[in-house]
């Protein structure tokens, strides 16, 4: 199986640190007038999105272009998927055009894992169903580290529809590798008790106030109505019990930051005041998305090229250069 990035769960702490470290070096680039590198010049990256996405797809596209790669973005509605082609056949067809990596988002949990077993091209998971969204967790970690000295010892509250959230799963796996105190919060239907067993340091609560108490980081999740089969609460009730209001902030640490993977629904998950609050880092998250995805693409395509070189018999002199 070629090296891609399928999930956070299977990464070691060292690998996460290496990606974050590399992403840090790309942060200043975002503020320069000339933003382009030629690390991946001549390489081709395909963005294959079977689910609607604006920020993730754009972010991956910008990241690839800043590394000098060529990109093609395909959305499911405009592809042969609508003509009944199977997922494997679609990917095989794309693979035959020899891209260096495929970035994919799919509504089915595990779709990129299944494909990685059948394809020789590295796959970067840009979100699979309710499973993982690894680059989101990486950019969230980078954003936290922009505001806190270290991940260790922090208390992070993740609030909302945890059951259907790939963002929550990837964040739990990442933060657990650093010994973070993780509190997951939501109504029981959206917070299955088994969540406390998927990683270490995870506690669950149905009470938003309890979750926020003493938190260094508050991550709000989008209400994923499209994935909820029997929504347990009406929208108004949801906001009443699980929406973040400015007065909640008094329970958190004074320097607590508020995060949200976007797109935000003002008045559904958080009030407008919280979204625009000075400790809200939602736009920093978006900005860091590009740096993190540059680090990931460089690692994935670089590793793939390295593996191919090794296979062809050339002498390997160094590591992956990350």
């Amino acid at each position, binding site marked *: 199986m070629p090296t891609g990035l399928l999930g956070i769960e299977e990464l070691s702490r060292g690998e996460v640190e290496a990606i974050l470290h590399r992403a840090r070096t790309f942060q200043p680039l975002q503020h320069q007038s000339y933003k382009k590198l030629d690390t991946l010049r001549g390489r081709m990256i395909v963005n294959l999105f079977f689910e609607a996405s604006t920020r993730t797809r754009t972010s991956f596209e910008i990241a690839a272009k800043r590394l000098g790669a060529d990109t093609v973005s395909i959305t499911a509605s405009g592809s042969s998927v609508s003509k009944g082609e199977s997922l494997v056949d679609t990917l095989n067809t794309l693979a035959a055009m020899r891209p260096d990596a495929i970035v994919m988002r799919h509504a089915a*949990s*595990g779709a990129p*894992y*299944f494909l990685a077993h*059948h394809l020789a091209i590295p796959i970067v998971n840009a979100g699979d169903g309710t499973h993982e969204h690894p680059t989101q967790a990486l950019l969230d970690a980078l954003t936290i580290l922009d505001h806190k000295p270290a991940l260790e010892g922090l208390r992070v509250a993740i609030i909302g529809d945890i*059951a259907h959230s790939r963002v929550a799963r990837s964040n739990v796996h990442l933060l657990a590798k650093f010994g973070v105190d993780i509190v997951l919060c939501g109504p029981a239907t959206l917070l*299955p008790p088994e969540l406390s*067993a998927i990683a270490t340091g995870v506690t669950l609560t149905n009470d938003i106030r309890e979750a926020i108490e003493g938190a260094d980081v508050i991550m709000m999740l989008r209400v994923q109505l499209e994935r909820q089969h029997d929504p347990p609460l009406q929208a108004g009730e949801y906001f009443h019990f699980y929406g973040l209001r400015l007065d909640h902030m008094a329970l958190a640490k004074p320097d607590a930051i508020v995060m949200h993977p976007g797109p935000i629904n003002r008045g559904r998950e958080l009030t407008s005041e919280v979204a625009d609050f000075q400790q809200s880092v939602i736009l920093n998250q978006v900005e860091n998305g590009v740096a993190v995805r540059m680090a990931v693409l460089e690692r994935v395509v670089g590793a793939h090229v390295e593996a191919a070189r090794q296979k062809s018999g050339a002498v390997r002199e160094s590591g992956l250069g990350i």
Partner: protein
Amino acid sequence: MASLLVKGGRVIDPASSLDGTADVLIDNGRITAVGRDLPRNGAELLDASGLIVAPGFIDMHVHLREPGIEHSETIETGARAAAAGGFTSICCMPNTLPVNDNATVTSYIVERARQYALVNVFPIGAITKDSAGEELAAIGSMKSAGIVALSDDGRPVMNARVMRRAMEMAKSFGLPVIDHCEDLNLSSGGDMHEGVHSTRLGLRGIPSSSEDVMVARDILLAQTTGARFHVAHISSHRSIDMVRRAKERGLPVTSEATPHHFSISDADIAPYDSNYKMKPPLGSTCDTAAVIDGIVSGAIDAIATDHAPHPGSEKMQEFEKCPFGIIGLETAVGLSLEKLYHSGRISLMRLVELFTTGPARILGLERGSLAQGLPGDMTILNTELSWTYDVNHSFSKSKNSPFHGWKFRGGPVMTIVGGAVVWRRER
């Protein structure tokens, strides 16, 4: 018709509690004698020394996909796989196209089996028309045409009133009702057992309670109607406990377990590999242990495979799109020897019972023993044989098995149906 003398094997016949070295003589397709040093009298000789000689194994739960879904399996290929798994008789579920809900389809299956099947095939009729769960099927005429039980396997009867009527009719015709116990509202949309692994993989869970509430309902209905109720592929620890208690109260309740439900759990699922996707789903390790305990205690009466062939094209998809079910005829005996006998949980006598008198009693079949006059069906095992399962060499038309590449200690080596050797392991 020629006669066959199976000589010098360790004969295990649970019906007569026989366990010892003996010869078995089959004449004209029927068993004529079991005893020491039987005279050959011109019979074909089969040396079984060092091997286990048992009555022919019965798999009471398979899907043969004929008529209508022949790209997955046919009566001929399914029966061939059964023979290669040591089975001399199989019972096929009615979820074909059309559904086996009337005597015409039953007769078609019986006739195709007579022409093409290496082993005995006993059809199971649908409980309701088209297995739609609404109107009862033609139960009496299907019985006359040869069905041995009723089931809407895969499409459980959700309406308790319909199930009550079905049990009443089943009782009238002396048929057991086999229920695939699944509350479709609770399991709706689920892809694997609801637990820590489904949560981790982001796959929608099927809660154990979806099995439990239906087992509870059907036990109550069996008590009311007096019908014989059999739980198909029992998998949850609470359901097994309910069956155990129903039996203690003397209710006509029986159950079967599949080899996969006692061999692997949801923790063993290769991520998003649809060869691990079936209903009921692989349970927790606690459920797996409960299935084995149930087999030991007698809460579970039979081992059945739920052999469910699906072609590769249907299994090569996103996990949530793949159909449920795995093939199992050729691995059942190997898994049972490995997980139940070699592990020290049950005796060989008990193991043979689970494949012979167990299912025969549930279905009222005049088979599963070596009594004089019964059909000359035998399964010959080697408990120490080491072999590897290669799904690509399976006789089944489909290759959807999670046990590909497994190394086994012990397995069937020869299958005899009506005095004729229909399969023998090539070394």
